[in-house]
């Protein structure tokens, strides 16, 4: 039995830890494990009771529709975010009691900040942006699907694999304690032989392959599948940011994969890449990791910039000011982001010359980001701004993100960096850019595109309250960390001795509760909106007087997106059509549409790679080998089978499109003043469009 399960033993099951030896620490650990297990059981039971298995399998799990895959990514992001936020609240509670110790053990504390970082970056941020890119790219460039729909599904499977492994560490064994960066030799076999670092390695490497393939897919889609007339400089800005993110994904994921696999070789096979002895060099790990890690920051933030760009021009009813500058700025960021990685370890022994070079490069990358802020401000200038939920997020983003950006410029100076490195100042800085930057962008984006995806708007009042809670909660939780950081509070320390930190930590704790409320607010908003969905329906598809092609479809769009591939002759194609008074053109003839067939590939890849990662983590070698062989054999068989495309007959396309056009003809256009009212069915009056 022991051999069959590798090194996994009954003692690794954390559910019962609390019953064997009670302490607050073990109660938190076991409690988290129970929440994970019961949560899973509850979801499975709910699906069974609601008799939704067949529906789930046919409509979602085997679908290769980019829209559904995008939505699944975002759901995955929210599930993992629930865990990340819960961990954040536990950590803040600990820190509020951490004067001369706290209620968690040091080990458990270290595990918490490691999982929190890993979850939030790889399994919240990444699924969110990948989900948005999936949903929006084909719709915005006028395509029917991704270039490689099956690969797209496999990418989702691989990302889910990583998430499953991280969740498994909650129940079986423990996660690593070396932070989200997992620097060896601390995470090497000598200092942590346990399963923790292995969970990290395989979660990151396997989901990393998924991200790389996503980037490849998006890049090829944007390069090759744009609608006729959609020149590069006519693409919506979101597509530009998505393209740059995709390029970064293709080039920046390999260093992470290489670092992870070398670390695995060190741990499992006794290699000496990053060990202390026999010629190992951990600096190689630091360099590899941050060659990925710094572009990763921009991988996450660029699509959010794209969302903010679409947001400003739509909700200020103006065309984007400085489109070309914004595109150039985005491209510059993509390139320069590969030249700054060393600023993550200024203190780790390079010569001052090298530090200065990277310090200057870091300061330079702030310039294109500054360009963007001015572009957004100029777009808002003299626009007729509607202060709806997305714009509330935007307002919070503007102020808070600028503070975060400034603290980044401060950190770019190696001399200052030496003073504040490894303090809470750093924690404040990166939360300050990721939360108001990435997360506010995502939530604003959800408010904008949720009606497109599901056919009804989100409740405006609940949404605005939630947005304000996020802004206030963020400011309370993270801004005080700048102060304690400058006072010398080291990050990642389980306890502190200086009573002067305590008041700040209590403010942080209160802020964490506000953030928890804000997170709950998202679900309250969703709940209220679902209950009132009759009043919020926008089947005609254009609730915000949108400017780009995705708004020229019904909500939700049909599986095939467009009845005929649109011809594009200007930037902001849909806004131009509306300004010229000829939107919703009826196609002259309909043709059969060929769509890729459903497949269970992604699901099986997910199962097999989860088996592989789990086997490698627990040294269950037969499972790892069997998983690899099963993937190879499956792929071999798959390549020999014919996969006929699904043909949607022209009559059906015509029927769906005609019904929509007729509904528009019957509908009443709504001016922007009535945008949030119940009369908004998604037919926008063009009272404010300035197209060119």
């Amino acid at each position, binding site marked *: 039995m022991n051999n069959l399960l590798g090194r996994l033993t009954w003692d690794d099951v954390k559910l019962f830890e609390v019953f064997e030896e009670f302490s607050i620490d073990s109660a938190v650990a076991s409690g988290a494990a129970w929440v994970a297990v019961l949560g899973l059981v509850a979801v499975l039971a709910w699906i069974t009771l609601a008799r939704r298995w067949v529906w789930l399998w046919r409509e979602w799990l085997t679908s290769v529709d980019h829209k559904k895959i995008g939505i699944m990514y975002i759901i995955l992001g929210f599930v993992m975010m629930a865990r990340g936020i819960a961990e954040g609240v536990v950590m803040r509670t600990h820190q509020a009691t951490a004067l001369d110790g706290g209620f968690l053990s040091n080990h458990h504390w270290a595990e918490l900040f490691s999982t929190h970082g890993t979850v939030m970056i790889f399994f919240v941020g990444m699924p969110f942006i990948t989900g948005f890119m999936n949903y929006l790219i084909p719709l915005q460039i006028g395509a029917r699907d991704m270039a490689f729909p099956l690969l797209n599904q496999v990418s989702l499977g691989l990302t889910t694999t990583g998430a499953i492994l991280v969740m498994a560490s909650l129940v079986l064994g423990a996660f690593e304690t070396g932070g989200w960066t997992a620097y060896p030799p601390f995470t090497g076999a000598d200092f942590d032989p346990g399963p923790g670092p292995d969970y990290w390695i395989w979660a990151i490497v396997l989901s990393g392959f998924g991200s790389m393939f996503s980037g490849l897919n998006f890049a090829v889609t944007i390069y090759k599948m744009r609608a006729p007339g959609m020149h590069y400089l006519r693409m919506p800005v979101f597509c530009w940011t998505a393209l740059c993110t995709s390029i970064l994904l293709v080039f920046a994921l390999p260093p992470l994969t290489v670092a992870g696999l070398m670390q695995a070789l060190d741990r499992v096979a006794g290699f000496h*890449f990053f060990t202390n002895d026999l010629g190992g060099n951990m600096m190689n790990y630091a360099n590899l990791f941050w060659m990925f890690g710094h572009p990763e920051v921009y991988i996450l933030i660029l699509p959010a910039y794209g969302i903010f760009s679409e947001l400003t021009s739509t909700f200020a009813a103006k065309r984007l000011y400085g489109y070309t500058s914004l595109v150039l700025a985005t491209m510059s960021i993509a390139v320069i982001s590969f030249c700054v990685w060393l600023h993550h370890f200024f203190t780790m022994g390079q010569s001052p010359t090298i530090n200065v070079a990277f310090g200057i490069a870091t300061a330079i990358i702030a310039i294109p980001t500054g360009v963007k802020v001015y572009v957004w401000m100029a777009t808002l200038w003299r626009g007729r701004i509607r202060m709806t939920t997305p714009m509330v997020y935007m307002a919070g983003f503007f102020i808070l993100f600028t503070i975060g950006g400034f603290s980044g410029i401060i950190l770019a100076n190696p001399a200052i960096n030496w003073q504040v490195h490894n303090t809470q100042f750093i924690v404040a800085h990166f939360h300050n850019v990721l939360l108001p930057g990435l997360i506010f962008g995502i939530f604003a984006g959800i408010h904008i595109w949720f009606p497109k995806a599901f056919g009804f708007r989100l409740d405006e009042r609940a949404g605005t309250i939630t947005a304000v809670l996020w802004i206030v909660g963020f400011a309370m939780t993270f801004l005080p960390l700048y102060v304690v950081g400058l006072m010398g509070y080291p990050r990642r320390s389980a306890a502190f001795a200086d009573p002067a930190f305590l008041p700040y930590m209590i403010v942080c704790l209160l802020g964490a509760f506000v953030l928890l409320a804000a997170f709950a607010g998202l679900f309250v908003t969703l709940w209220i909106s679902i209950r009132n969905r009759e009043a919020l329906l926008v089947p005609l598809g254009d609730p915000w007087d949108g400017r780009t092609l995705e708004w020229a479809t019904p909500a939700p769009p049909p599986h095939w997106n467009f009845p005929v591939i649109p011809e594009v002759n200007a930037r902001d194609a849909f806004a131009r059509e509306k300004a010229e008074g000829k939107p919703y053109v009826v196609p002259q003839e309909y043709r059969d549409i060929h769509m890729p067939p459903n497949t269970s590939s992604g699901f099986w890849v997910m199962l097999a790679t989860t088996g592989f990662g789990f086997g490698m983590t627990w040294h269950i070698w037969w499972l790892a080998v069997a998983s690899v062989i099963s993937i190879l054999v499956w792929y071999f068989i798959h390549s020999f089978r014919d996969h006929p495309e699904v043909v949607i007959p022209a009559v059906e396309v015509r029927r769906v499109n005609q019904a929509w056009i007729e509904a528009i003809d019957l509908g009443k256009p709504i001016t922007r003043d009535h945008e949030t009212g119940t009369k908004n069915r998604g037919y926008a009056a063009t009272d404010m469009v300035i197209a060119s």
Partner: protein
Amino acid sequence: MSTQENIHPGMNLGYEGETHVAELKVFGFWVFLMSDLVTFGLVFAIFGTMVGATAGGPGPEDVTNLRSVALQTALLLGSSFAFSWASLSMKYHETRLRTLGWLAIAATSALCFLIVEFLDFRHWLEIGAVPQRSGYLSALWALVGLHGLHVFAGLLWMAAMTGQIIVFGLTDIVKSRVTRMGLYWHFLDIVWVGIFSMVFLAGVA
């Protein structure tokens, strides 16, 4: 984006609507190769930083057998050469036999490469040049092994393609797959030239 611009000239595809798909897939595969090249580049870079990290164990002069490396180079480049003939016969001849023949030569040559490489590996084990001995040897095994693993994967791919040519004939889909396989195969040659010169030649220079 008219379809005329997208016809892939290297494959002589039938004109039944597969051309656009072939273009997408070949382009996507180029992107994948770029990413893979970054991977190899990083392993090369790590190797470069670890050349001196022998920790008193076997060094470059102990693991380099130039005769064996020359043989491996000839076999791998020969395999690539044979593959390019397979690609050409796929383009210009309708009979599948000629393509299959060249593929068989390419596969045999690559298999011999792996065998000779394996003999080298065995020699390294015999003289105690195991990857657990030093940072240098870790990097050496990882770099040469990663390339060998790619060649092995390529052989599996070639086996699958042989099967598909026999089952389906030279259809557009098969042609597109063989073309991508060719890119991969020549790509591995370029990587090998890097290994040959940076690891072995520079090691004993």
